[in-house]
């Protein structure tokens, strides 16, 4: 029994640590984009290093959580869904890492006039991800509160969507001085930032169904 209690405690700690990693990853992404826009490349590279260590830790935790749930037959009825949720949340931190790396490799030139727009898209997209974390934590402790928490994820996702659309429209219709290649590059970068909120929404959809199933 003591062995089993320890396994339970360890698993709970690992799941919490995994969520902490995603949460920190989102924070690092926001700060990384800010540093890039402010041309503080030293800080930007520090953030890339940080996100790489967070992502690798999240991967390790993801595998370990899956292993423990199977070996100790924990949550047999909800195991597959919990694993999928963790997998989808891991995709968020994977995307954060690859987006920051894209910035570092391609070094996109973002005109000063677009800085605020980029910051706003980043803020909305990261917020969608950040609002997912308490909802995911609530699934394990108070599943009946999950759906109300998820409303904020959907709100920020739609905000990120709107901001990205208006920014892209501005780039392609108002900024005549930019050539098409640069416009396409900026669109691609915006898509990368916006992708985080899309992934958060995908995880939120799954979480919402999981919450209904566990409450019933």
């Amino acid at each position, binding site marked *: 029994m003591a062995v089993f209690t320890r396994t339970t405690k360890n*698993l709970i700690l690992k799941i919490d640590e995994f969520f902490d990693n995603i949460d920190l990853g989102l924070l690092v992404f926001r700060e990384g984009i800010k540093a890039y826009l402010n041309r503080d490349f030293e800080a930007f590279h520090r953030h890339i290093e940080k996100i790489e260590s967070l992502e690798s830790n999240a991967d390790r935790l993801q595998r370990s959580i899956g*292993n423990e749930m199977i070996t100790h037959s924990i949550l047999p009825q909800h195991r597959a869904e919990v694993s999928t949720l963790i997998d989808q949340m891991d995709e968020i931190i994977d995307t954060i890492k690859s987006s920051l790396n894209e910035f570092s490799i391609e070094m996109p030139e973002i005109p000063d006039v677009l800085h605020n727009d980029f910051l706003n898209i980043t803020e909305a997209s990261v917020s969608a991800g950040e609002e997912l974390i308490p909802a995911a934590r609530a699934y*394990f*402790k*108070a599943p009946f509160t999950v759906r109300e928490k998820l409303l904020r994820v959907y709100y920020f996702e739609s905000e990120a969507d709107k901001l990205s659309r208006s920014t892209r429209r501005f780039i392609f219709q108002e900024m005549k001085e930019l050539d098409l290649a640069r416009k396409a590059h900026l669109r691609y970068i915006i898509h990368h930032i916006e992708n985080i909120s899309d992934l958060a929404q995908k995880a939120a959809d799954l979480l919402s169904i999981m919450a209904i199933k566990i409450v019933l």
Partner: protein
Amino acid sequence: MILLYLVSGLFLGWSLGANDASNLFGSAVGSRLVSFRKAAVVASVFVIIGAVVQGSGTTITLGRLGNVNAVGGSFTVALAAAVTVYLMTKFALPVSTTQAIVGAIIGWNIFTGNSTDVKTLSQIVSAWIAGPILGAVFSIVLYIAVRKIKRAFEIHIIRFESYLKTGLIIAGAFAAYSLGANNIANVMGVFIPSFNLSEIQLGFITLSSAQQLFMMGGIAIAAGIITYSKRVMETVGSNIMELSSEAALVVMLAQALVLFLFSSTSFASFLKGIGLPSFPMVPVSSSQVIVGSVIGIGLYRGARNINFRVLGEIGTGWVATPLMAGLTSFFSLFFVKNIFGIEVGWKSSGSVSQTSPLPSSAGESVSSIAQYLLLALFIIGIISAALFFFLEIRKTKELSRSEEKFWKNLK
């Protein structure tokens, strides 16, 4: 030879273990919260304890219904019940050992010209009806309580599940104890008047003749659980509706409570003591109680997923099983008496019941077999515990070694 007479009862016990006892852990094993091995060990141990410690209450009631006073009669009555259970199971008809044995005893009463005590019979039948209803009521109350506790304390679902797993083992043990206490009368009840075994002294404990028979019946039930109940356990529960892990615990507890109420003489006297009506000591069908409990949860949740056909099947079982067992018993007694020339019983005169107990030498030989069985149980228990402990340690070590290897290779 004497043991041959017991074979029909032991066969009935085995089929009870294989079918009815599967209900004990069915929902837990079906939802993969408890492994079959663990469930089978706990159920077997507690069924035997329940039968030996508390099996007498329901046996007295069955004795009042019909005091089978010849060992040939006991054999035939138990065989008729066992054959009925076997045939009805084979043709996928709803069946209960409890109802089969009652029908078989009534068949014996008719054959030997003994009158059936209508008061006892009505008590038994009302308990059959009350069992599933009480199961439903208990499961609704317990389900509400468990959900309220879960919600109020905001317990992490992984921790909650670890509590549930422990709860399922404890509730399963309680249910197995209650099943042993309640249903052992079906298996060995008819043999009690005919067997007079010498007492076995085990330190402070003395095993009476009836308790030795109950122990043998308990071992037969345990054998049924270990050898044949795995498939039934893995499918039970989902037949009526899908069960969540907390619902599995509630169903198990509700079933255990109902079986306990109908078999605990001390609880009955406690109720009498405080001026409340007590429950009759009647063997009830564990399958039907569990169906009632599952339907109770289904009703609370809005009756969306319930397969209501099973209710009709229960009703059919109340009539069809005793009828078929009664007919089988009557005709078998006729053959055993007139073709094989074995005495199957006679009409009891007045209030004094006449029985033909076995000769004392036969009783002593059965007693010594019971002693050897006890010793074997003790040795098997120790070996199994050691083996389980050893295997668990080895499994844990192997897992941690493979985990370490995995991360090392990944790096």
